[in-house]
């Protein structure tokens, strides 16, 4: 380590995080997923509401590289739908029509991130061909594109929800522990009221309070608020316990002696010492928010069609017949799984990095 530079305990923890291969890989995976969600409208070949009814439940399109024994640029065949004797959908490739895969295909004018006007998307096939990387849903919408758009909602809900509930939890816990006495009593009883009700029922109850005539953005925001309302109480209790012991440290007495205000002491001299715990707790609780949104949307109380979220896309996979015939509708579930697992592993590795007792024992 460079002797001239000064390292804070956080930098040391980050340093050992960087050395961890497991943590690095899953962190990159998360960054990749968030990046894809961010640029969803450029990367997705179609918009989330573009439907082609004649292509409902189309399987993932095959991409061909070899034409009559010769290697060519990738292309796809047109697909035609017919029904077999059991009235099941059968898609056949129409070898007479082939469409090349291209980068930067022209499309209708749209706005990247809602600001930058653009006439091209990153990739696609020649019109009127269609490419469905992960197949289509009942209304013939491209699942790959909808996954990207849905990621915007599903992934951001976790982050925003965690920010709100942790802000609240840290503040309430810090204040309760620092002042003690009556303040502590009132705040902690309030927390217990929230913790008493099982999370899912509380979520449903809060959701039923939200008016039906909300537009999709208001619904989105209300879901974020609902989810963060459930999460803060548990954290507040733990932070309160830590702040009870931290306020007895001599540097807190010293800070009081210097004439700092209570608020500054809580923010600068107490809460930062809980961060090594709360950063890990944040990472480990984001999956809860993602799953919460997915659960609400799955039962139709969350994000409404045609807007995509991973949860409401999964509602297509609610019957066993669909899963048997069109297994690709389960794709959002796979992405939820990947994201949740990544957050858990990154959180786990971070915990090891922040725990000085584990240092040197385990080099993962």
């Amino acid at each position, binding site marked *: 380590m460079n002797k001239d530079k*000064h390292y*804070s305990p*956080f930098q040391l923890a980050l340093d050992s995080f960087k050395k961890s291969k497991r943590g690095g890989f899953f962190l990159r995976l998360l960054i990749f997923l968030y990046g894809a969600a961010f640029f969803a409208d450029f990367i997705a070949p179609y918009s989330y509401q573009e439907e082609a009814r004649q292509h409902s439940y189309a399987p993932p399109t095959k991409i061909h590289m070899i034409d009559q024994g010769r290697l060519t640029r990738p292309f796809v065949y047109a697909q035609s739908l017919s029904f077999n004797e059991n009235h099941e959908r059968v898609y056949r490739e129409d070898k007479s029509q082939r469409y090349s895969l291209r980068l930067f295909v022209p499309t209708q004018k749209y706005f990247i991130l809602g600001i930058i006007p653009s006439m091209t998307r990153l990739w696609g096939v020649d019109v009127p061909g269609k490419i469905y990387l992960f197949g289509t849903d009942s209304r013939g919408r491209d699942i790959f594109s909808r996954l990207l758009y849905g990621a915007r909602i599903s992934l951001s809900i976790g982050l925003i929800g965690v920010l709100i509930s942790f802000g609240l939890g840290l503040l309430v816990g810090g204040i309760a522990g620092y002042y003690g006495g009556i303040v502590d009593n009132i705040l902690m009883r309030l927390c217990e009221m929230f913790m008493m009700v099982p999370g899912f029922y509380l979520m449903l109850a809060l959701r039923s309070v939200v008016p039906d005539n909300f537009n999709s953005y208001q619904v989105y925001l209300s879901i974020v608020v609902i989810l963060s309302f459930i999460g803060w109480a548990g954290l507040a209790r733990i932070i309160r316990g830590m702040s009870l012991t931290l306020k007895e440290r001599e*540097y807190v007495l010293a800070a009081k002696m*210097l*004439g*700092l205000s209570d608020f500054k002491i809580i923010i600068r*001299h107490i809460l930062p010492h809980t961060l090594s715990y709360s950063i890990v707790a944040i990472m480990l609780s984001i999956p809860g928010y993602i799953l919460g949104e997915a659960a609400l949307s799955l039962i139709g109380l969350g994000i409404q069609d045609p807007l995509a979220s991973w949860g409401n896309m999964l509602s297509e996979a609610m019957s066993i017949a669909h899963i048997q015939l069109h297994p690709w509708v389960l794709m959002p579930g796979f992405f939820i799984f990947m994201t949740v697992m990544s957050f858990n592993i990154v959180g786990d590795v971070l915990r090891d990095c922040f725990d000085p007792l584990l240092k040197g024992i385990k080099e993962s």
Partner: protein
Amino acid sequence: MNTTLVTIKDLTVSVKDGNQKKYLIEQINFDIIQEHIVSLVGESGSGKTTTALCLGRLLSLALTIESGKIIFNGQDFLTLTEKQLQQFRGAEIGFIFQEPLYAFNPLLTIGFQIEEVLIAHSDRNRKQRQSRVLELLDMVRISDPMRVFRSYPHQLSGGMRQRAMIAQAIAASPKLIIADEPTSNLDVTLQAEIIELFQELNQKLHLAILLITHDLGLVRHLSDDLVVMKSGRIVEKGRTKDVLAMPRHSYTQELLEATH
């Protein structure tokens, strides 16, 4: 220039022990004269630190001030509200703790923690604050202020940390510094340097210093006045020279013999 800065009058502090009250300090009286160094000596548990904490009104919740008055610069200290106290602490009274390693927040740099005092007690802007901090560090004879400014507490040696804490205590130019056994964790050569520093600050900045210590050598060398405590009471007080030359109370005599 012999005006009184602090008067402590009949101060009594008690702690609740079941249904009984125990007295940690009983009826103590003494004055701190401006620009004087007053030593408070006594065995462990005699109420020295409690007295010091009373001066910042920072007793733990279990302890209560039963009666008495602390008059600081003409103001009755015990009637101030919490808000007024915040303006008082740091600005009028600086505190130096025994173990600076624990008295600094390990997550923040030394520089920032000194700056914090200036944020609370002055309206200097960021640049002025930083140059003031460097000036303070220089004043306590830290040879490389820039490095110390950016260091975290654990990166400094004990002596450096002690100096940094003195810089923090004098940052808002208080009139009184309370030093709670400032040298007992340092080795002998460092002790000598810190003592010198106290003397210098006392003269340069016209500070009154309340020195809490076991070390009679330090007392003899440094202080103008001496207060001797035992079991929560003051057993002897007066000019340091007089008390040490002719100790009247048996405890003071024992203390003197023990250190010879």
